[in-house]
């Protein structure tokens, strides 16, 4: 049983969260706390495995709790539940910096409860599964700072973040390709996501900025609020590589960043030197992108349905007949690495 403590100043929120978690029998709600001081006390007495933590609270806020926890005797995993504001996003980034293990947005639109609850439970299970090994060595050691000639693209949405952990923690630091992750997220929240992934991956992870050049051994997370497109660029020595272009074009499938935009534009630039991976996600984003990649000669991988919380995005790729491999989550990192190495060989010939 995973022992969970819910920390939120709103009775309403505590009830909603508790009810969501109670549906899963592997979780046990050991208590609730309505402010930071209360939370610290209960953490030391109840010894929960994980706490869900609100940021805005009276007496002591969530960030102060994280600071206090550093010197506390018991260290539960912390899952921040953030509100959808730019302030909330900044606070979340700060929380990740202070050691919070993950974050999720507070439940919104309760009629969608089931999905949110599934996602929350999946995240908690993932955090407490023990599979989460923090990076052993410092980032960037093998980073040759060379411009990327190959690219790994990952498209992900609802249910995706825990899968990103699983994939990135297994990709080797010296992978000779640039990596771009397009994860559907509200504005402001891709920065904390990048900060969090940076702790898990073997290479530096950052949020995209307009004009960034793709580099081997660097992972980019598409900034929310704009589409990340990959433009062609030539290096000084005439090598072809890619550059991040932030486009303000309207949302596609109701989202921005759209996986399709990133995939399609990258297909133009990198052609066969692309591996795309589609993880869990709702909707049809990624189908057209995967199709473009396949036509350009790249490889398209989707994750097996049993490992996905939602199968919409992967299904859209199947419908476009744009899938080379269907793999369980655990096999994806190896496959990506193998394909990238194959590309290197091919180009050397």
């Amino acid at each position, binding site marked *: 049983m995973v022992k969970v403590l819910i920390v939120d100043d709103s009775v309403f929120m505590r009830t*909603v969260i508790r009810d969501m978690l109670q549906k899963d029998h592997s979780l046990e709600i050991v208590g*609730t706390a309505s402010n930071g001081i209360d939370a610290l006390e209960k953490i030391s007495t109840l010894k929960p495995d994980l706490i869900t933590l609100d940021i805005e609270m009276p007496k002591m806020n969530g960030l102060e709790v994280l600071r206090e926890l550093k010197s506390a005797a018991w260290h539960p995993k912390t899952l921040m539940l953030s509100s959808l504001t730019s302030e909330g996003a900044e606070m979340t980034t700060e929380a990740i910096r202070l050691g919070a293990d993950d974050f999720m947005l507070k439940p919104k639109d309760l009629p969608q409860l089931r999905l949110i609850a599934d996602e929350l439970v999946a995240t908690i299970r993932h955090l407490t599964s023990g599979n989460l090994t923090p990076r052993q060595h410092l980032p960037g050691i093998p980073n040759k700072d060379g411009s990327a000639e190959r690219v790994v693209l990952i498209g992900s949405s609802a249910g995706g973040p825990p899968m990103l952990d699983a994939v990135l923690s297994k990709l080797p630091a010296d992978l000779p390709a640039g990596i771009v992750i397009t994860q559907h997220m509200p504005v402001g929240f891709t920065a904390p996501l990048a900060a969090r992934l940076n702790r898990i991956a073997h290479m530096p992870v950052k949020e995209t900025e307009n004009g960034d050049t793709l580099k081997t051994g660097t992972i980019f997370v598409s900034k929310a609020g704009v589409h990340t497109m990959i433009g062609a660029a030539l290096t000084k020595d005439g090598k072809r590589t890619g550059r991040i272009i932030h486009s303000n074009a309207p949302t596609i499938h109701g989202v921005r960043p759209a996986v399709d935009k990133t995939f399609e534009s990258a297909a133009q630039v990198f052609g066969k030197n692309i591996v795309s991976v589609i993880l869990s996600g709702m909707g049809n984003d990624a189908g057209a992108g995967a199709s473009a990649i396949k036509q350009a000669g790249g490889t398209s991988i989707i994750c097996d349905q049993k490992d996905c919380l939602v199968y919409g995005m992967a299904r859209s790729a199947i419908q476009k007949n744009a899938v080379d491999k269907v793999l369980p989550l655990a096999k994806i990192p190896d496959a990506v690495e193998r394909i990238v190495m194959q590309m290197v060989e091919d180009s050397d010939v």
Partner: protein
Amino acid sequence: MSEFEQYRSLFVAESRENHENLVKNLLVLENGADQNAIDEIFRSIHTLKGASASMGFAVMEHLCHSMEDVFQLIRNGNAEMSEELENILLACTDIIEEMLDDIEKGGDSSSKNPEEQVQLLHAWLQQRGTPAREKTEIPVRRDEVESDTGNHSLEETVAGAGPEYTLTIVVAPDCMMKDVRALIAIQNLEALGTIRTIQPSKEAIDEGKFDGTVHLSISSEAGEEALKTAALGTEIASVDIQLTETPVTPQTGPAPAKKAAEPDKKQPSASDKSREIKNLRVDITQLDHIMNLVEDLVINRGRLKQIAEEHRIKEMDEAISMVERSVSELQNLMMTIRMIPLSHIFNRLPRVVRDVAQYDHKEVEFIMEGGETELDRSVMDGLNDPLLHLIRNAVNHGIEVPEIRENAGKARKGTVRLSAYRDRDNVIIKLTDDGAGINVEKVKKKAVEKGLITADTAATMSTDQAIDLLFQPGFSTADKITDISGRGVGLDVVKRSIESLKGSIKVETTQGKGSTFELLLPPTMAIVDVMIVRINNRRLAIPISSIVEVANFKKDSTHRIGKGEVTTIRDEVLQILWLDEMVGRSDRCEILIVVQYQKRKCCIPVDAVEGQQEIVVKPLSSFIGTTKGVSGVTILGDGDVVPVLDINTMQE
């Protein structure tokens, strides 16, 4: 969607608390900056917003979001409160309250339109140079995306639309591969939009007919920055970009999410779950139910006791006295649990004072004391409206406008003081203003005009009697009916409400100095101390609180005055109230119970006094209706149903 509905009542309960806290602290801010109040406000709005977002009440969330934006600035010290802003924010809180009412009834807040207030807030934000945050995008419009299949072609056909830009790209002069650089730039631009014209053409560049400068026009929605980045690259010397025109294009964004119509559902019964380990939220109807059971227990205890006495069973008597102790304790405990501090209704009042004062252009300082005094919930419920009315009156009729006050040698700012305290078995609430006081002559004149009294009566009336006129139905001294006070209801309604709570109201006034309204209330309505009396073999209960004294009845000292009969006790002439109609005439009346309501005394002749007892008053059932002189019934230990007299209505 039962999962959803089950949260509704919890949502409403918590949001009401936050709303109240919000208003309270906004009023604190009126008296100057207070960081603590600002923090409280921010947290309340934040929670309101979060909860309404969770429930999917988009309109309410929208409003709270804008308010949060404003307070974000204030909290960080980047802006200050102003009277203008205070007014906007208070108007917002009014809308929130309406929304909560709507939601409580099963709505989703969308029937209220906060757009005006939201615009004002945004305008305020813009004045401070902070553009209002764009409505944050929701990552996945889940319901919509699912039904999106096959719509992709639509997006492709309109992809070329968008504002048109002209670009001048200059490749660095020392570049070795000018044509390649230019072609990459053009290729990147093509990915972002539709290139309308290009000079020189791609073919020309391909053939090497290129001097290092390309002019092109492109229509794209990607934005200027994206276009510039796309065109820039290694060895591109400069990119000049200009917006040429904005063609009117159909919006390609997805239609605003259509809210699934929320079917009207019955309001769910309030949740009965325990929310906290230390504090329990209990539905008030359950408390009422427990109270009823306790009352039954009290009645049956009396009955058991009587049986034990009749049969003289000693063991049973002992056992009953043990039960009795537990029952008394339980009863006391229940009474305490039902007590809530007056601050529950007091907290709303500063807002009322403020609004009335502002409407009337008056300056008023409102002081509240004793908000911690506790009252039974049922009393509290009935107290809200009368109190509101009295407070409005105090500001509207009592306090004068600043100019008049200054002329009268008073401070510009009037004072209204509301205080509450416990006085033995009663709770006393006093409302004092230092305004003009009641003009007795004006009152009399008005009463004569309204035909309530004759001019002769008016001339002989005492001040107290004249003030009593204020409580007559249909009396109002206000020259015109305003929004604020006197909505067709007068003090008579106030008086009636207070009396229905078994309380009384008293007025003291000094012209030019101000008035005091004093409400005397029982802390609880359910259990009353009564004297059981017997007339003509029937029993009646008279509340002890109305009884002044018990005296011998000397039949020879009665006199007739008009239709009525009077008697004298210690040289005081008292009207005799015969209860013939109720219980039939008795010739064996030996005792007089002198009762008093306000300042009027009278006496009731009875055969015998049986004793004093705490009883539970059960209201008469609705089909009997209200009966003058009887406030309810009680069941005594022997099962006898006894009417409880209501002295207030009996005298009329």
